[in-house]
């Protein structure tokens, strides 16, 4: 950690997270989704853009099990994935 003792020098001040802290998943309820996500990452050379579906599922799992505050997924940056899903639905209909 850096101390901001030198005026004008670059220093880092940690900021609290926007939505607070994740409660710990003591019972491993979402472990399966996490494993899926990690497998996807390893398969895709750790590119996040290709594994967003899995990360969305992990967060949905957390929300269902009260391990995360329920929020619309658009607010978490998954707007494009939701639009895709709704487009698929429309096209099927």
């Amino acid at each position, binding site marked *: *950690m*850096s101390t901001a003792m030198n005026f004008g020098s670059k*220093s*880092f001040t940690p900021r*609290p997270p926007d939505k607070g802290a994740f409660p710990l*998943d003591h019972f491993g309820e979402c472990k399966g989704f996490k494993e899926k996500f*990690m497998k996807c990452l390893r398969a895709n050379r750790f590119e996040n853009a290709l594994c967003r579906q899995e*990360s969305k599922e992990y967060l949905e799992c957390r929300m269902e099990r009260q391990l995360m505050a329920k929020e619309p997924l658009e*607010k978490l940056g998954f707007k494009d994935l939701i639009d895709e899903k709704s487009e698929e639905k429309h096209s099927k209909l």
Partner: protein
Amino acid sequence: MGLCGRCLAAGWGTRVLCVWARGSLGPWGVDLWAPSRQAWPGPPQARGVARSNPFRRGQEQEWRRRNKTVLTYVGAAAVGMVGMSYAAVPLYRLYCQATGLGGSAVAGHGSDQIETMEPVKDRIIKVTFNADVHASLHWNFRPQQTEIYVVPGETALAFYKAKNSTDKPVIGISTYNVVPFEAGQYFNKIQCFCFEEQRLNPQEEVDMPVFFFIDPEFAEDPRMASVDLITLSYTFFEAKEGHKLPLPGYQKQIVK
């Protein structure tokens, strides 16, 4: 010079030898035998005489006026200094936001931004992860992925794993660091496990996720043009009972 001058030159006391200069002015042009009529203000009773002199009065008034002016200026300067010290706080904050010195928060950053932000697909950034524990904390804490490739404007998920290898429940609390420092202001964590006490039961192992994104403005900052690697480093400390860590203005939020 006169006779007294010559007496002085001879080294004799003026008074004694200027006896015969009685009635005439001494070497300084002063009538030695009339002490009340002296050219300098001297003892107090002489000032009354000076005040009656109109030139003197005018001069004193002039001095008083000037003193008042100077005093007014000095007073105004003092008040100005006090005012500036109060104004400095918001001004400095504005300056920091404009220049981003010291890694302070950039203005306009909010969670509504997440909804509307567009990923900047041509700028790929590698985020590496680092995990540390304090020496007294016997946890096995490590990241579950060494690196992840993200673009600004895209939310990303990363995992750490922590195992309590002791036989007692331990409460830990963590903080983080982002290197390079200037990139830290663009690194926004939506949710993580830091700054809150996390309790691990004996021999328990948990996954700790970090949900973050890099601000799209990162791509527009000329200072960040050469930054391709950001390192996120978490450090866990043991939280002792009743020990309050200086958390950065963070109110404990209940997520459930």
